[in-house]
Every structure is written in structure tokens, then in C-alpha cells.
């Protein structure tokens, strides 16, 4: 049953996929941790970023990794604008309203993409898409190794941002005690929008890491948003380290599920894990009890 020749590559493959899930989930968890909203539009915004990377490559010949300095700031600006212009206006003090607004945004973005770009599955053809690196007996795809390294780097950068900068201090202050933060002169609206923008900027990173080996369709976001929710719930809503570990665990679960249960049933492991965590430990592995 447990053949190592299959088990080890599947685990490594799972870890590299999980790293990208972790980057997506980092954005989601930051938004939840600070604004206490679940961003249902997360997957749709990821899809937009992926189309961005796709068109930069096909129209202007910009390599996905070199597209990072274009895509990430654009996504940040989009996130900042969405929070200031739409989401903050919807709260009316009720969480349900924000849930509905982000769901509505997701519907709009997904179907606008379907209208503009049709449901065709698109891929880009980079010279290094099938390059591999040897780790002892195991061959690992180069773009996936890059994704893994980048994910860890992003997590460290986030940790530095949150602990070492004034912005990070302000974000943590607002997350803990909104009114108190306002009283000491922090511009809460700005911090909210910065957090949302940073969360969405993560999607820009994820899109650049994904596209060399993944495809894009208007509905690609739905699969990712479910996985990202799972990661965030597993790691604990609002916890950065939780998102990183959660992403890796989910990646491996998915990969091993696919190996032992087959492609179609393999995904079920993720959702069963999701439901179990939601039921028995909704605060997640690393979340604090609220």
C-alpha cells in the first residue's frame, strides 16, 4: 500500500502545491484577522490576477515571474479601492451584509470574465514549464520549487511587516481593539483598506507562481477559494503561521488523497478535513479562542 517510490514524490508535490495555497490563504487570513470578514471574492480576484499574468505573457511577452512587480501592486491597488469604495460602505454593522457583498462581487467578477474571455481553458507555454530539479532519487518540477521557496519568503516578509514596521503595529492594534486604535490616532479606514489591499496583493504573488504550471478559466477561483477557506480554518482564522502550516497540510492531503483514492474522489479528503475542523475545532490548530 505505502510504496515509497510513489509516496515521497506525491508528498513533495503536495508540499509545493500547498505552498501556493498558503500564499492565497495568507491573504484571506490577514483580511479575516483585521476586518473580521470572510472574503468570498478571494477566488475571483485570484482568477483576475491569473488572467493578468496570462495576458501580460501572451500580449507583451512578459515572463510570469517578471510580471510580479506589475501584478502585485495592481492587485494591491484593486484591493485598497474595493475596500474603501464598496465593502466598507456595506457593513451597516451586520456581518451578513459583508458576506453578501463579497459574494455578489465574486458573482460579478466571475461572470464578467466569462463574458469577456469565454470559458476556454488557457495556459501559457514557458520554456521552463517542464524543467525539473533532482533531489536524490526524486524529480521535482522547477516552477513548483520556486513556488515553495517564494511562499516561505512571503510568510517571512509578512511576519517582518507585522512585527517590525509601524504599519504592522497599526494593523495589529486595529485587529485587537478598533476603538482603542482610533482613540490613539490610527486612521482605521486606512488600515482596513491597507490590510485588504495586502491580502489581495498576495493573490498577485500566487497568480505569478501558479501560471507557469497551471491553467486559467473564469471558474478557476471557486476551487481555490474553497481550498483557501479550508486552509484558513485549519490554521486558525487570522493566524499567519497557521495559514502556512495549513496550506502545506492541505496540499499533502490533496496529493495523497489523489494518489490513493483517485483524482475525482481525492478532493474529498480536503472537505472532510474542513468539516471536521469546523465542527470540532473552529478556532483551528493555531487560532486563539475568541
Amino acid at each position, binding site marked *: 500500500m505505502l510504496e515509497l517510490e510513489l509516496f515521497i514524490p506525491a508528498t513533495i508535490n503536495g508540499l509545493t502545491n500547498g505552498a501556493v495555497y498558503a500564499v492565497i490563504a495568507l491573504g484571506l487570513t490577514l483580511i479575516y484577522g483585521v476586518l473580521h470578514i470572510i472574503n468570498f471574492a478571494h477566488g475571483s480576484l485570484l482568477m483576475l490576477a491569473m488572467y493578468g499574468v496570462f495576458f501580460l505573457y501572451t500580449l507583451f511577452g512578459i515572463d510570469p515571474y517578471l510580471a510580479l512587480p506589475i501584478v502585485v501592486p495592481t492587485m494591491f491597488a484593486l484591493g485598497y479601492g474595493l475596500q474603501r469604495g464598496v465593502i466598507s460602505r456595506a457593513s451597516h454593522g451586520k456581518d451578513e451584509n459583508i*458576506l453578501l*457583498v463579497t*459574494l455578489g462581487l465574486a458573482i460579478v467578477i466571475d*461572470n464578467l470574465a466569462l463574458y469577456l474571455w469565454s470559458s476556454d481553458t488557457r495556459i501559457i507555454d514557458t520554456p521552463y514549464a517542464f524543467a525539473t530539479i533532482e533531489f536524490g532519487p526524486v524529480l521535482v518540477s522547477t516552477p513548483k520549487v520556486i513556488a515553495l521557496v517564494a511562499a516561505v519568503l512571503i510568510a517571512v516578509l509578512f511576519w517582518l511587516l507585522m512585527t517590525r514596521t509601524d504599519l504592522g503595529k497599526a494593523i495589529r492594534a486595529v485587529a485587537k481593539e478598533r476603538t482603542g486604535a482610533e482613540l490613539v490616532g490610527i486612521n482605521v479606514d486606512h488600515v482596513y483598506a491597507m490590510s485588504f489591499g495586502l491580502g489581495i496583493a498576495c493573490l498577485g504573488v500566487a497568480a505569478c507562481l501558479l501560471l507557469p504550471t497551471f491553467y486559467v478559466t473564469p471558474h478557476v477561483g471557486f476551487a481555490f477559494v474553497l481550498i483557501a477557506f479550508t486552509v484558513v480554518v485549519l490554521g486558525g482564522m487570522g493566524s499567519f503561521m497557521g495559514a502556512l502550516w495549513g496550506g502545506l497540510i492541505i496540499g499533502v492531503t490533496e496529493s495523497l488523497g489523489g494518489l490513493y483514492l483517485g483524482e475525482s474522489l481525492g478532493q474529498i479528503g480536503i472537505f472532510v478535513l474542513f468539516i471536521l475542523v469546523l465542527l470540532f475545532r*473552529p478556532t483551528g490548530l493555531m487560532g486563539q479562542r475568541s
Partner: protein
Amino acid sequence: MKSIPAIALFTLLMAPLPWLLQSEYLLNFAIMALFYAFLGQAWNVLGGYGGQFSFGHAAFFGTGAYTASILQVTFGVNPWVAFVLAGVSGGGMGLIVGFLSFRFGLKGAYFALVTLAFAEVLRILASAVEFTGAGVGILVPLQQSAANFQFADKTGFYLVALALVVLGLLVTASLESSRFGARLIAVREDEDAARALGVNAFEIKLKAITLSGAMAGLAGSFYTQYFLYLDPAIAYGPAVSIEALLVPIIGGTGTLFGPLLGSGVLHSISEFAQHLTAGAPGLNLVIYGAIMVLMVLFLPSGLWGLVVRIRAKAGAGS
């Protein structure tokens, strides 16, 4: 039940419609609007009156749809019997999902997420196992007769859809005037306060999700009979869950006629948009989503809330 006259009037006005319309196209439109009104009413029982926002009503809809189609295709059960059993199985799925999530105190966004996950698990299961026809789906053989719940004429489907909507209205109206309904609304407004007054919130929410699931299960069976085809994406995909919550939210959650109004308006807009865009894929849903955002931003009590406000203003003016 002070809403009975309004429901009776609605039934009387709507019943002769197929003989007045004389158009397959318009009749089909009316059937779909009624169907989504009923599905929205199912969501409204739990989400509108109970305050528990489900993002996965497809779990109940799909279970009802599969129950109805498998029972008649594989086991030769009469479709009308299968229709009733679809309601039972939808309710059963509601009971299971509700028991698990409410037992562990999930609310708000967590509840929305867990319902979404249940629908997704069921979708994956349905596309993986044999007896649901897996990814290929189930084709219900065409055998048109009223005894077989397949009408040669759309009028039959229209009358069943109307009967379902009236049933939904009566169930909802009874919520507004019963002890159970009062307790459910109390739980929605403030669960802790309701419990302090001796309301068993767990039991009340469980009853509401079972009722809501049963209604969605019936809707699933109706869908199967109308289109005679079912696959995992139709049954358990996110489209049904989104329709189920959009309709009452646009119309007005926690109101009797909200889902009906929401469904009528949404489907008129959707048809109009399809004409305008010559059936371009996705554009009608773009409009749906935009309306949903605008509604939450500017009209959080829905269209029915607007109607009530205008009536109150007119009443104060006269």
C-alpha cells in the same frame, strides 16, 4: 393567519394564467420564476426567519433531486411517490447538516462555510459513485402522462409549481403566527436572550433547517421532472445555492412575499439581459451580482421592504 386572504387572492390571480398567456415561452418563464420563488422560500425559512445564512442549499436541493430520479429510474417507484420522498430526503439532509453544525455552535460565516463544504462533499461523492450515474448524470426516460409527473403540456408543470409556491407561502405564513415561528425569530434577533427566556435554540434551529431542507428537496424533485436530466454540477453545484439565497435577499429576507417578488424581478431582469446581449454567457449573472451588491448597499431590507415603506408613506400622507 392574517395573510390567508392575500395568499388566496394570489392563487386566484395566478391559477388561470396558462390559459391567458397562450405562449410556451411566457409559460416557461412563469414556471421558472415560480420554481425559484419556492426554492428561495425554502432558504427564507432558515435564512430569513431563522437568521442562519446557508451558502449550500444545493446540498438539500441535490439530495431531493437525486432521490427522485434514482427512485424512479433504478427502482421503478412512481414519480409522485418519489417526489414526496425527495422532500423527506431533503429534510433528512437538513437534519444531518443542522445537527452537526448547530450541535457545535457554528453561526454566521462559519455556518455559511460549513454548508458550502457539505454541498461540495456531496458534489464530489455524486460524481465519484456509480448509482448516481457519476459524471455522466441521470437521464429520466420520457414517458409523458400526468400519473407519471411528466406533462405533455407545460400547463401541468405550471400548476404544480404554483401549488408548491402556495404551499411555501402557507408554511411561511404559519411561521409568522405560530409559537415555533416566534421562537425562531427570537433566535434570529438575539440567540442568547432567547435562550435566557427558555427557548431551546438548538431544537428550534434544527426544526427550521429540516423544514427548509425538505422544501428544497421538493424543489429538486420538481426540477428533475421538468428537465428530465440531472448531473452532479446541476444538483450540488454552487449555482443553485446562489439562486436560493439571491431570490429572498433581493425580495426581502424574513418576509412572506419577498422571495416571490425577488424571483419575479430577478428573472425578468435576467430574460431582459439575455435579449439585450443576445444570450452572451455570463452577462445576466453579472447583472444579478451587481444588483445584489447594490441592494445590500442601498436597500438592505429588500424590495418588499421598499414596498412596505412606500405604502407606509402613502398611508401617512392620505
